């Protein structure tokens, strides 16, 4: 084992240290800090891409840490998203906080999420999970007003409860299988089979991780936090912790609990259906864009979990691919809110006639939302097609049908925003001015979604799926 396989984590850690050092000097306004941090993440992304391209598979620390294609794919998505967040926010005012503080907490949380994707035993999983969420609690509270504090406290208290439940599950699993290493758990499980106590262990572990990915019934924090936190924070939260959470779920369930797949697969099916239904139905009657995106992200967790309810490599690949597609679109949508909110506010009605005031932004938003719906020829369509076709192949036609029907329901609230932007008269006519890094990031995401939609093979080869 060489240390070079840890290059992405080491670089992210270095980025965090830089942010910390700069933060010590409190008096300077630094628009360049975002670029530095963003470049750092891109460096980590390149390192990760090299590992991915070389097909490195390594196990470190007695199986506690794994570097493989699964980890590298999720890290790539996560690091790319974080780099975009950092660059997009470079010239945006981050309310109530010193810029350095934001980037410090961001990079620490990113570090945690990257480690989560590589976790090979329960202890590393727990530690990386905490490293992901602890800075994000602080991130949510960064704005220091009533709403963000409330959101942070909700996120924190519920997150703590979820963590405690997770540890309880981990302790049961450890006790019943005699190990915390994923491979040893799997070996022991195939020897002894399932027991009722282990069922409790599995479900409590799932609850702990389900909280991070905002799956029903552990989803309540998501809309509140997405609405209460500062927009840059919310845009990171919609992608970052989720990436880590999904990577960890795949690793924990497929590797460690793989022998019990027939037991947990139906569990994911239920949670998937519940998340889709709750997310989509609740989103229908929302009035602010961010809250709507919060519920929509719950619904997307539901779609993604289809990839676990169907037990096949094909389904898991489709999950990773859809996660990429989802991340690009949801990140884009949040960045649009970031760009537009100072001028038009965050209510859906505020977006009225945006196509006149900011044609570029409106077009980008339409692309993001249509991709989230899954309209061809955008990336979201291929992602959903891939995901639902895996359900059909796995013999779970009903799950695909539920997914399709839900996508159609979701169309109702996404199209409402588009209708506001394109078919309603603007209330004011002032131009929407957007800092150029933010604009560049948004257009980059539009291009990415179009390219992935039109030529998906390119990205699939890159991600080595």
């Amino acid at each position, binding site marked *: 084992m060489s240390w070079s396989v840890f290059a992405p984590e080491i670089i992210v850690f270095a980025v965090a240290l830089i942010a910390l050092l700069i933060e010590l000097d409190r008096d300077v306004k630094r628009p360049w800090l975002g670029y530095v941090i963003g470049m750092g993440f891109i460096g980590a992304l390149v390192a990760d891409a090299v590992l991915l391209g070389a097909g490195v598979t390594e196990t470190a620390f007695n199986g506690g840490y794994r570097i493989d294609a699964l980890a590298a794919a999720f890290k790539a998505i996560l690091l790319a998203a974080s780099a975009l967040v950092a660059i997009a926010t470079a010239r945006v005012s981050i309310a109530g906080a010193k810029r350095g503080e934001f980037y410090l907490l961001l990079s620490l949380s990113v570090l945690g999420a990257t480690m989560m994707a590589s976790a090979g035993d329960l202890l590393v999983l727990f530690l990386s999970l905490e490293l992901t969420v602890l800075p994000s609690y602080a991130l949510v509270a960064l704005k220091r007003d009533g709403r963000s504090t409330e959101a942070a*406290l*909700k996120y924190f*208290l*519920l997150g703590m*409860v979820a963590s405690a*439940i997770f540890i309880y599950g981990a302790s049961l699993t450890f006790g019943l299988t005699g190990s915390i290493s994923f491979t040893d758990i799997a070996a022991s499980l195939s020897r002894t*089979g399932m027991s*009722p106590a282990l*069922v*409790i262990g599995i*479900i*409590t572990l*799932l*609850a702990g991780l389900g909280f991070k990915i905002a799956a*029903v*019934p*552990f989803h*309540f*924090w998501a809309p509140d936090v997405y609405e209460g936190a500062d927009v840059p924070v919310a845009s990171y939260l919609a992608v970052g912790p989720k990436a880590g959470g999904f990577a960890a779920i795949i690793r924990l369930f497929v590797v460690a609990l793989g022998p019990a797949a*027939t*037991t947990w697969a*139906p*569990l994911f099916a*239920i949670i998937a259906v519940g998340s889709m239904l*709750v997310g989509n*139905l*609740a989103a*229908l*009657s929302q009035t602010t864009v961010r809250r709507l995106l919060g519920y929509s992200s719950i619904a997307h967790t539901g779609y993604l979990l289809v990839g676990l309810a169907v037990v096949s490599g*094909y389904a898991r*690949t489709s999950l990773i691919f859809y996660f990429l597609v989802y991340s690009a679109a949801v990140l884009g949508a949040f960045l649009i809110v970031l760009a537009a909110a100072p001028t038009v506010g965050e209510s859906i009605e505020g977006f009225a006639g945006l196509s006149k005031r900011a044609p570029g932004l409106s077009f980008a938003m339409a692309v993001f939302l*249509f991709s989230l719906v899954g*309209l*061809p*020829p955008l990336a979201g*369509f*291929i992602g959903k*097609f*891939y995901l*639902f*076709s895996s359900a*059909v*192949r796995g013999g779970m*036609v009903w799950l*695909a*049908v539920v997914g399709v*029907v839900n996508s*159609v329901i979701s*169309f*109702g609230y996404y*199209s409402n925003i588009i*209708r506001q932007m*394109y*078919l*309603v*008269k603007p209330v004011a006519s002032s131009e929407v001015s957007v800092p150029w890094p933010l604009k560049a990031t948004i257009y980059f995401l539009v291009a990415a979604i179009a390219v992935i939609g039109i*030529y*998906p*093979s390119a990205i699939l080869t890159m991600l080595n*799926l």
Partner: protein
Amino acid sequence: MTYAWLIPALPAASFIILLFLGKRFGKWSHFVSVGAILSAFAISSFILYQVIGGRGSEVLIPWLSIGELDLNVGILIDRLTAVMLMVVTSVASLVQIYSVGYMKEDRRYHWYFACLSLFTAAMLMLVLSANYVQMYASWELVGLCSYLLIGFWFEKKAAADAAKKAFVTTRIGDVGFLLGLVVLYYAVGNLDVGSVLAARLAPAVATAASLLLFLGAMGKSAQFPLHVWLPDAMEGPTPVSALIHAATMVAAGVYLVARSYPIFAASGVAMDVVAGIGAVTALMAATIALVQRDIKRILAYSTISQLGLMMIGLGVGAYSAAVFHLTTHAFFKALLFLGAGSVIHSAHTQDIFEMGGLAKKMKGTAFTFAVGGLALAGFPGLSGFWSKEGILTAAFVKGAYPVFAAALLTSLLTAFYVGRLYFVVFTGSMRKNMQAKVHESPLAMVAPLAVLAFPAGLVGLIGSPLFGNAFQGFLRLGESGEHVNLMVMGLSIAVALAGLGFAWIKYSTGLLPSGLIKTSNPFFLLLKNKYYLDEIYTRGLVAPVVGGSRALFSFDSGVVDGAVNGTAWLTSKAGDLVRRAQRGQIQDYGLVMVLGIIVLIFWMLTFARL
């Protein structure tokens, strides 16, 4: 025939050029888009020539290949495609040329032509698709463009609402299409059109798949009960209506059924459903058209009715006759809409009873309108007569008498409302306030009318017995050859003449007292209110959905009630816990999390295989 990809690519390129450089082109935007569509038309003509010469092709290129999933895209050219390409490109070309005059003063001139180009490109891609997924993608794109074009004048609230209605209603159908694809994928294992149509499907699978696909077709082709969007879609610019009604949007549904015909043919049930829905639609829309006053709405209901007729044709197995009717209808309906546009352009009203005597001032428009109207009414010898004839004969020969009766009655009503429309608008005396402003439209608008009048009137001849039913012979797909049934032909001539004659007596000669039909007559009111279908939708469908989502939504904010109800069986201690937890939001959330875990554990321990 590898160059066929140029056909959709040219209008698509025009869209992209106009999207980015449109402002610079300004008033010259139409050169880009008209040039593109005319080139596409030229290529389509050449392809038709080659296909008549016996060539066809299917090009598939792998697009997405990962694991076990192979998705191809490609271009499929056969006789159906060649015919459709001709219809779409020719009508679209004329509509675009016509728009040059019609939209001259619009502020968003370039954006209009950009949308029109994209709309056409999507439809052409749909027709050429060699894979159902690709077809679905184009299908959605067609829907999206119609949304943009119907709502083009979004400052008008009605236009914005109509656009939304069109989009949402057709989405209901799209679910069917998508689910149909799920079924086909499950049964066949891939979605290439060639292999799906060649697959031998079990009857149950064929029924399920075809009914789901038909649901999609019902949305796009405005079949009862999903037809409600089409009349409202009149809020768009008139050339757009012409395009939607003749060549693009509504033709997509019929095309889908025609393309998937082997799947439908494998299921008797599906065929009967198609014919039945077609019959209901045809008759219902024709009756509604009788009492409308808005010139474009009359034409809109007439489109719905004619689409119903096409579905009848497909349902009774007259595949080629149905496609033939689609073709002839495209031409004469485009002509009628463009004619109506010309009338509206000069009269500045859409109410036919505010017009009258326009023929004197607008000779060209009136003449071409008459050609289109007579073709629609099934006047012997003109296009509509021959194509309608094929459908009626097939229904009669097959012994589907109720459907046949419905189709015949529809023809009678059609002839009547066409006569009413023409006589009220063009004959009689002109209103005072009209005299000054009415004028013939500019050449750019009248020329396409004149050009369209020829195919509208005469294209039917290529499918008539006079030419040995050449059109049907070209398309034939496992159906017996057409044989002229003199009785059916006689009946159809009789109803066409009767309808037109009665309209003439009623609206032109004034022989009948005007109070013959009382407007308070309940039947009249029923028709006038379009069978109250819109109201039924609003109250019966939209309200419960909104209510349902509200209900589920309140679950999230006031989890309490749900939690209380759901856990009534828990011990009093747990009940106490729930009640206490009602006080604070965070703890409600936490409580539901914990209850969720408990429910999952119970469920797993009870039902799951350990």
